[in-house]
C-alpha cells in the first residue's frame, strides 16, 4: 500500500553525530506501536543542510520542519502529529531573537533563499536506494547522452553552460574535457576528487552522502564525452559514511547495469572504483592525488604535462571534484542555456558553501553565483550570535583570504573574490566576529598548512614554518618592528617559488589579514595588546572594585587560586598566579571582571 506521509530524517554526518540514527529507530518503533506503519514511511536522507538544528525530521507532503529532536520527544510527536494530525509547535524552528515558530521548510529563511542544483535531491531521497534517485529524474541525462548526443555534443553543451571547476581552481570544465578527449593515449581515465581537506568545509562529503548517484551519473556522462572506460573516486578514509553510501550506490548501479559493460544496451562500457586516501591535504592537488592512486608518495609533479595529457599511469586523465560532477546531469537534462542563465557574467550556476564559525545558522547552503555576502550571512545565515559585531569571513579555507566586513555587499563569484585577495576555493566560509583575533586566525591556518606541506619545495616547507614562527611570536607578545614587512615579503616569495597550489596559496590568510587588519598586527607588535582579547600573553583580567559585590563566586571557581578578598568586599586578582582562563569573567554576575 502507498504511504500517505514520508518522514525525512536527516542522516548526514552532522545529524548522525547528534543521534539521528537513534531518532530514526525510535520513530519507526513508535509508528509501529501506534499501528501507523502501513501509512507512514520513515526515510533516512543525506544532509539537509541546516546542521545547527539537528537532529532534523521533515514531514512530507506537509513540508513541516522539526528540529533539535531528542529521544524523549518522539512518542509525543508521533501521537500528536501522525496519529491525531496536530503538528507540534514546540519542536519547530524559531529564528534567533524571535518568539514565533515557523512551521514549514519553505518559510524558513535559511532554505528559501537557496537555489539547488548540486544538492537538488537533499532531503528528498534515501541515498541508499537507487530507485529513489531514478524517481527524481535520475539517469535520465544518461539516457539522453547515450541515445541522442555525440562526444562533441556533450562537450559543447558543458562548454556553453559555463560550468567551472568547483574544487577551487575554477577552470572551465568543458575545456578540460575537450583537452583530455583530444589527447593521444589509451586508455583514458576519469577521476572524482572527493579528498576535501579544508578545515570547516564539508560540501563534497554531504553531496556524496545525500546523492551519490548524481556523482556517478555525472561521471558516466564525462566518460562518454572523453572516451574513458574506467573511473576512480578518490575519497578520504575519514569519511566513512560517505564511503559506505558510495559503495552501496556503485553496487546498485552495477546490478542495474548502469555501470559495467554495454550500459542500457547501448554498447557503452564504464566502471567505477573507490580509492581511499589517508587524508593528506596535498592530495587535493591533482598530480599528488594521481600519485596517491598509483601507490607512490603523494608529492606534486611539475605541470606541464597536465594530467589531461599525461596523468594516471602516464595516460590522459580528467579530474573534477564532487560538486562539479554532480552539476553535470542537470546541465545535460535542462540544457546549457538554463544553467548559463543563473549567476554572473563569468561564473555560472550555483555554488555550495559550508557556513561555519560565528554564525547562527551553521550549515550547508547552495546559492546562485553573484549573491551578496550580506544575503548569505544575514538572510540565510541569520547573522552573528549574541549581538556581536560581524568582522569578516574567511573564504576558501587555508588557501583563501579574509573578506572584511566593509565588503559585505560584495557579489560572490570567482573573479570578485580573487579581486579582494580571497578565493572561491572549494567553498568553506568561516565567519568571524569581534572576538576573533585576526593574527591568531592567520596563525591557525598557517599551523595547518605548514603541517600539511609535503616538503618537496623548500619555499613551502621552510617558508611556512618561518611564517608560523613569526606569527606565533607576535601572538605571544614578542613581535618586533619589521615583522609585518618580512611576513609580506616571505609570503610573496613562497607564492612565486612553490610548485603546487598548496604552497602558492598558503600565504593568503596572512597576506589578506595584513591587508585588511594591519592595525591589529600593529597593536600586537607595538602596543603589546590584542584588541580582540584572545592572545593570552597580551591580556590581563582585573576586578572593578566599584562593581564587585564580594559574592566570592569568582574566588571559588578560580582554578589557580589567584583571586582573594573578604566576603562582601571587593576582590583582587593576583596577576602572577592568574592563568588567564577567563572563568572569573564568565561567572561574574555583576560585570565587574574586565579584560584589558
Amino acid at each position, binding site marked *: 500500500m502507498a*504511504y500517505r506521509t514520508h518522514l525525512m530524517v536527516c542522516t548526514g554526518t552532522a545529524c548522525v553525530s547528534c543521534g539521528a540514527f537513534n531518532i530514526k529507530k525510535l520513530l519507526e518503533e513508535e509508528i509501529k506501536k501506534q499501528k501507523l506503519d502501513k501509512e507512514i514511511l520513515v526515510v533516512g536522507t543525506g544532509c539537509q543542510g541546516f546542521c545547527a538544528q539537528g537532529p532534523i525530521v521533515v514531514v512530507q507532503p506537509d513540508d513541516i520542519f522539526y528540529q533539535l529532536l531528542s529521544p524523549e520527544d518522539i512518542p509525543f510527536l508521533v501521537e500528536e502529529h501522525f496519529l491525531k*494530525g496536530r503538528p507540534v509547535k514546540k519542536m519547530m524552528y524559531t529564528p534567533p531573537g524571535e518568539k514565533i515558530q515557523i512551521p514549514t521548510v519553505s518559510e524558513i529563511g535559511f532554505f528559501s533563499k537557496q537555489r539547488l542544483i548540486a544538492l537538488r535531491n537533499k532531503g528528498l531521497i534515501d541515498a541508499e536506494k537507487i530507485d529513489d534517485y531514478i524517481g527524481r529524474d535520475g539517469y535520465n541525462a544518461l539516457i539522453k547522452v547515450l541515445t541522442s548526443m555525440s562526444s562533441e555534443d556533450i562537450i559543447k553543451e558543458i562548454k556553453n553552460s559555463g560550468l567551472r571547476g568547483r574544487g577551487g581552481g575554477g577552470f572551465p570544465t568543458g575545456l578540460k574535457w575537450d583537452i583530455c578527449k583530444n589527447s593521444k593515449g589509451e586508455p583514458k581515465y576519469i577521476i572524482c576528487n572527493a579528498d576535501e581537506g579544508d578545515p570547516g568545509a564539508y560540501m563534497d562529503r554531504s553531496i556524496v552522502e545525500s546523492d551519490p548517484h548524481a556523482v556517478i551519473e555525472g561521471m558516466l556522462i564525462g566518460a562518454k564525452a572523453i572516451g574513458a572506460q574506467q573511473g576512480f573516486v578518490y575519497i578520504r578514509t575519514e569519511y566513512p559514511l560517505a564511503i559506505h553510501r558510495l559503495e552501496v550506490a556503485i553496487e546498485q548501479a552495477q546490478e542495474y547495469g548502469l555501470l559495467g559493460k554495454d550500459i542500457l544496451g547501448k554498447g557503452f562500457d564504464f566502471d567505477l572504483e573507490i580509492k581511499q586516501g589517508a587524508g593528506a591535504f596535498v592530495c587535493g592537488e591533482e598530480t599528488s592525488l594521481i600519485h596517491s592512486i598509483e601507490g607512490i608518495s603523494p608529492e606534486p609533479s611539475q605541470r606541464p604535462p597536465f594530467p589531461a595529457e599525461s596523468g594516471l599511469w602516464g595516460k590522459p586523465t580528467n579530474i573534477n571534484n564532487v560538486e562539479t560532477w554532480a552539476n553535470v546531469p542537470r546541465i545535460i537534462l535542462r540544457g546549457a542555456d538554463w544553467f548559463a542563465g543563473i549567476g554572473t557574467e563569468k561564473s555560472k550556476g550555483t555554488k555550495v558553501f559550508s557556513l561555519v564559525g560565528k554564525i547562527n545558522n551553521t550549515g550547508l547552503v547552495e546559492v546562485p553565483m553573484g549573491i551578496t555576502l550580506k544575503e548569505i550571512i544575514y538572510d540565510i545565515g541569520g547573522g552573528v550570535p549574541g549581538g556581536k559585531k560581524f568582522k569578516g569571513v574567511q573564504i576558501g579555507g587555508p588557501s583563501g583570504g579574509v573578506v572584511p566586513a566593509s565588503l559585505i555587499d560584495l557579489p560572490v563569484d570567482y573573479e570578485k573574490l580573487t579581486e579582494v585577495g580571497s578565493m572561491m576555493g572549494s567553498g568553506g566560509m568561516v565567519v568571524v566576529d569581534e572576538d576573533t583575533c585576526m593574527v591568531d586566525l592567520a596563525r591557525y591556518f598557517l599551523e595547518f598548512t605548514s603541517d600539511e606541506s609535503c616538503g618537496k619545495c623548500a619555499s613551502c616547507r621552510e617558508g611556512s614554518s618561518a611564517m608560523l614562527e613569526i606569527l606565533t611570536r607576535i601572538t605571544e607578545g614578542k613581535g618586533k618592528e619589521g615583522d609585518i614587512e618580512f611576513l609580506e615579503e616571505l609570503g610573496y616569495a613562497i607564492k612565486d617559488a612553490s610548485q603546487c597550489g598548496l604552497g602558492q596559496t598558503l600565504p593568503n590568510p596572512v597576506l589578506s589579514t595584513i591587508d585588511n587588519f594591519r592595525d591589529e598586527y600593529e597593536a600586537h607588535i607595538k602596543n603589546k595588546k590584542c584588541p580582540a582579547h584572545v592572545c593570552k600573553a597580551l591580556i590581563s583580567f582585573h576586578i572593578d572594585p566599584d562593581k564587585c559585590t564580594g559574592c566570592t563566586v569568582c574566588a571559588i571557581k578560580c582554578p589557580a587560586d589567584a583571586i582573594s578578598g573578604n566576603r562582601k568586599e571587593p576582590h583582587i586578582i593576583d596577576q602572577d598566579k592568574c592563568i588567564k582562563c577567563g572563568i572569573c569573567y564568565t561567572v561574574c554576575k555583576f560585570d565587574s571582571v574586565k579584560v584589558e
Partner: protein
Amino acid sequence: MPKLNIKDLEEIRKKVRKAALLREGISNAKITVHMGTCGIAAGARPIMNALIKIVEESGRDDVIVTTSGCAGLCSREPMATVELKGETPVKYGDLTEDKIKKIFSEHVLKGKIVEEYALVIGSEREP
C-alpha cells in the same frame, strides 16, 4: 537483477514517481481526514485506511492524503476536507467508507462537489 534497458528504467521511474511527488509536496488535490480524539472515536481511522486504498487503486499520483486535528464540529465526525488546487476547500461530515468512495470519485476525480454530504464550503479564517 538482470541488466536494465531504457524501457526498464522508465518503468522503475513510473513506479516510484508517486513517492517522489509526495515528498516534493506536488499535488492537485489534498484530502485531510480530521483525526482529533472525537474523529478517531467516531471512526476516522477506517475512513483513512479506506481512502488510502481508494487513492492507490485510482492510480492518481497527484493526490495527497493527510491528517489534521479536530475540526470543531465533533458531532459530525468523522470528517474530511477536500481541497482541489486553486479551489475552495469543502468539508464533508458523518462519513462512511461508501461516502468517502463517492466523494473521491465525484469531487476529486470529476471536480463535482457532493452536496448531499457537504457540510460547508470554504474554511474559517483568523479574524
